[in-house]
């Protein structure tokens, strides 16, 4: 079958998807086989999870604040200012929290993974690992993937918590929304399933950032220029993949966890 492969872009995309899928499969089978180096996982959690907190908190605070202000400006004209709370809350849990955290972590962690593994590749350190009978998937990819899967849902939760706190502050202290109504409506319209959706998305985005970052690093060629290219590609590919997968994930998860009604 020649047709789709005659386009260079189609061929490059097929090749990339093949490599990424193979890497994901090898990492998955290693995890299932229990080849998890917990000491390395803990080190990665510190670097990925702990080290990303400042970025995620600042993102959460200012996203919550500005989103609250914009919703208030629109809703206040319709005398619906107390509806700001639920709109902000549901949007943060279902979309903004996981997507923005995913994008920020893709920028910070995906780039670092790709640069570190890519540098190891071009300086023969990956070959040295293999020559020492150490599987690079087990040693480099699995700890990063497991650390991401543990850290990302927690970072999403942290982002949403700070975003909601900022939203409450902006709405009630700056825009003079009644705090009792704000909290009551927010609590009424926000469900456990919204939180499950946020954490599920966080988990899926963690897998995307880890696999794309590691795959780009492991396929690095051509020295320092290649490391730079891999790093850029890791951020671009993981960010775009997160945005695209998010749409399909939203549609699928909405069947399992349909957007809810208020609990009065």
């Amino acid at each position, binding site marked *: 079958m020649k047709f789709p492969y005659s386009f260079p872009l189609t061929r490059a995309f097929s090749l990339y998807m093949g490599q990424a899928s193979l890497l994901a499969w090898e990492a998955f089978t290693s995890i299932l086989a229990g080849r998890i180096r917990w000491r390395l996982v803990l080190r990665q959690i510190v670097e990925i999870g702990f080290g990303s907190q400042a970025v995620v908190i600042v993102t959460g605070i200012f996203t919550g604040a500005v989103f609250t202000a914009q919703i208030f400006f629109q809703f206040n004209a319709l005398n619906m200012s107390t509806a700001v709370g639920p709109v902000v809350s549901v949007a943060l849990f279902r979309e903004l929290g996981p997507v923005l955290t995913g994008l920020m972590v893709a920028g910070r962690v995906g780039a670092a993974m790709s640069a570190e593994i890519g540098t190891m590749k071009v300086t023969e350190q990956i070959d040295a690992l293999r020559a*020492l*009978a150490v599987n690079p998937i087990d040693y480099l990819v699995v700890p990063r993937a497991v650390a991401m899967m543990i850290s990302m849902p927690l970072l999403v939760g942290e982002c949403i918590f700070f975003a909601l706190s900022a939203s409450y502050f902006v709405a009630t202290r700056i825009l003079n929304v009644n705090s009792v109504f704000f909290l009551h409506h927010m609590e009424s319209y926000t469900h456990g399933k919204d939180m499950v959706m946020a954490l599920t998305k966080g988990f899926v985005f963690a897998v995307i950032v880890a696999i794309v970052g590691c795959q780009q690093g492991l396929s690095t060629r051509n020295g320092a220029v290649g490391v730079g290219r891999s790093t850029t590609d890791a951020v671009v590919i993981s960010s775009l993949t997160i945005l695209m997968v998010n749409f399909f994930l939203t549609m699928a998860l909405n069947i399992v966890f349909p957007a809810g009604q208020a609990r009065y």
Partner: protein
Amino acid sequence: MNPTEGNLIEVRGLRQTFGGQEILRGVDLDIPRGKTLVLLGQSGGGKSVFLRHLIGLLKPIAGSIRVEGEEIAGLDERELEPVRRKIGMLFQDGALFDSMTVFENISFPLRERGLRDETEIRRKVREALELVALSGQESKMPANLSGGMRKRAALARVIISEPSCILYDEPTAGLDPIVSDTINRLIRRLQSHLHVTSIVVTHDMISTNHIADRVALLRSGRIHFEGTLGELHGSPDPVIRDFIDGRSHEID
């Protein structure tokens, strides 16, 4: 089996291409157990590529590689691990892990093979560092070492796990004559005391004269010559003479 009898590695019809260019065109070579074989050849002639096949870092497009009688050409990464525990490799620039100290680098193979006794690990690392004349450098990062020190630290990382065979990729390239001599003596000592089989890829004739039991010359992707050091020096073959005497035939 006697540690100096028979062939440790047997290569037949090994072929490899990169980007359409044929680098190895059917290499046949036996690597005798317990001896030092030096593989000579021009830069870019495929010597390092050949070496990488012997430990499964590259897969040939055709041919056979037998290590202690076991065919390794078709093995996957996990199946290759037992072979790689028997064969160590010194990379051209050392390939030390730059996120680890010298001590962590050298102790890495021991920890990976399950040794947990810290006293034993420290003792073995100290011995390995003494052997390569790098005592007292344990806490340094690879970035703070000179080229020669990096190479010696990498050699300590190879020998600490006591492999029966060591592959050296240009072990003396870029080193001053004194450090080169240290490495040459070490290769000799490992062979004479521990019967380690060594395969040394180089174009350094001084080094070759010092360490080789047997010599092979790789030319145009094939083994052009294979024999003892005496046979190499006694050969009337103009290709070998040019290589030994360092003569090119380009017009001045």
